[in-house]
């Protein structure tokens, strides 16, 4: 069978695919994407075109409610013992819709700040990106994590307001003002992981809101640059495995899930993607340097302070979209 995998960059490295293909006889075709595009693609294909997708756990129940693009996971086909139990249970909970479970966890990580210490040592929280000292040398994405991060940094709690539309609108209004005010500081809104790495590496950007993994991989080349968990808390995400409604290679999909959750394989993925996985024991085979960087970025209190995304209710994204559009259009 051919496994058509819709995933993030780095989650299906070539060496893993080769091992998988050799072992199972399936072939793997990878399409790299992001959360929005994954949902959009599956919506357009009505849940077809792919056999396995990897959106974040907060993007499953809402999308399922609206577009009916996934099929429930048959847990009997999954070796649950390979998963870190707490993470598996949390994900199951977050991806339940109409009493069916749609997702199991794969990779987790955080969004926070990637900072060039030599040039922008003062940047410690999201709001510091708006400081004059880094004017014109800042970047972040114009996507929902930015809204959430800024809200926390402003002392608000967006997750608590998820199910109270009015309260959430209030929060968004404040964040919108802040982001518009901050706009002159921004060099460009980045889109993909390597893009922000390029910007930081070349020195065109000195501080950014970005994924932890980006900061760590830059740290390898340039000791000044690294990931900093913001004072308001890093935003924790878990990317999952889901089965598109009309996937045709379920068997290969389950085989892939079970294959990559083996600790050795999981470690290979961590080395490639930079983020840790939900594989029990998967961190053992990970490059020591990466573990060190992780520990430097996340002292224990910072780990406790991670804000994990709850499920996004179906209508929120429309509100957020309008805000993001207005920010983008503001001068």
């Amino acid at each position, binding site marked *: 069978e051919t496994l*058509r995998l*819709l995933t993030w*960059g780095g989650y299906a490295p*070539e060496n893993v695919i080769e091992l998988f293909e050799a072992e199972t006889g399936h072939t793997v*075709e*990878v*399409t*790299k*994407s992001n959360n929005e595009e994954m949902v959009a*693609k599956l919506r*357009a*294909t*009505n849940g*077809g*075109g*792919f056999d396995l997708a990897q959106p974040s756990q907060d993007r499953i129940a809402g999308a399922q409610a609206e577009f009916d693009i996934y099929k429930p996971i048959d847990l009997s086909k999954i070796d649950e013992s390979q998963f870190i139990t707490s993470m598996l249970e949390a994900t199951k909970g977050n991806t339940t819709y109409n009493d069916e479970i749609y997702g199991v966890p794969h990779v987790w990580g955080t969004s926070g700040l990637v900072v060039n210490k030599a040039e922008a040592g003062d940047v410690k929280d999201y709001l510091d990106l708006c400081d004059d000292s880094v004017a014109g040398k800042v970047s972040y994405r114009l996507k929902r994590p930015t809204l959430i991060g800024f809200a926390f940094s402003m002392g608000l709690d967006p997750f608590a307001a998820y199910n109270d539309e009015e309260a959430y609108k209030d929060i968004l209004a404040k964040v919108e003002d802040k982001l518009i005010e901050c706009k002159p500081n921004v060099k460009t809104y980045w*889109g*993909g*992981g*390597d*893009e*922000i*790495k*390029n910007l930081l*590496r*070349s020195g065109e950007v000195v501080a950014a809101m970005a994924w932890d993994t980006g900061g760590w991989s830059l740290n390898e080349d340039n000791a000044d640059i690294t990931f900093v968990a913001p004072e308001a808390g890093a935003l924790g995400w878990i990317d999952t495995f889901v089965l598109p409604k*009309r996937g045709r290679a379920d068997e290969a999909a389950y085989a892939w899930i079970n294959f990559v959750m083996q600790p050795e394989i999981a470690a290979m993925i961590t080395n490639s993607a930079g983020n840790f996985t939900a594989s029990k024991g998967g961190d053992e085979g990970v490059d020591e340097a990466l573990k060190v960087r992780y520990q430097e970025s996340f002292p224990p209190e910072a780990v406790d302070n991670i804000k994990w995304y709850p499920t996004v209710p179906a209508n929120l994204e429309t509100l957020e979209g309008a805000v993001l559009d207005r920010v983008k259009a503001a001068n």
Partner: protein
Amino acid sequence: MIRTLPQSNTFKWTYRAYVTLFFVYLALPLTVVCLMAFNNSVFPSLPWEGFTWAWFFGDEDPFIGVFNDRSILRSIGTSMFVAFWVSLLSIAVGTTNAFLFVRHDFKFKEFFYILMLLPLIIPGIILGISILVFSNAVANNLENATGMWFDGLRPGLPLVILGQFSFIATFATLVISARLEKFDRSLEEAALNLGATRLGAIRQITLPFLFPAIAGAGVVAILMSFENFNTTLMLVGSDAPLTINMFDRLKLGSTPVLNAVSLLLIVVSAILGLASLLFQKRDKSS
């Protein structure tokens, strides 16, 4: 103003300088793209870190060259597949359209001709979304009615091919019509007069005459299909043609492997383009 009119030297040289500058402007981006394909750095930008072939032949992460990059090789295959069908459909419909508009008179011909031109003034992205929305609706209805799956009507290569064909057919029609227009109908009549059947005359006389235009339209269709982005973007499913694949990579930031692909693209299309031009020229001179 023209060669035979006296011009002042200042004017002549300023004009030449301008034209030279223009061609520098045209050449510049492509040149740097090609040069950076040999930069021994994981980023396609300065500084120059030395010369390497790694972006073509490398197989060691992160120096994976084009020829070892499965997804690029696969998307080149996809692009070729798409281009083949688009070009085939386009020249088929382009040829029948040409005969329709050049050879026949019918009611509302003007109006239909303008309809035929419409794809030229519809933005590609809109062609893409309209076809997406339509096929989606048809698929939903069919699936509700029959309970079967109609994957061909969902984003994927069939839709990509149809989407590109929807506007490339117009180009093919224009190219082939232009040549058919020049065809002296008495050649066909002469063939009939010499005993050929109607279809025989078209096959032996008209089609050979049209051949350069048909081949030219085919090459143009292939080039346009290969480089199409806007329409394809909205219709692509799991198999991404090369441009889409490259775009995804470019968005994420990429190694100079993209430069290497681009260099290969430039070389191949230059050869294709030159071949088609030489072909046309040989035809004209004969």
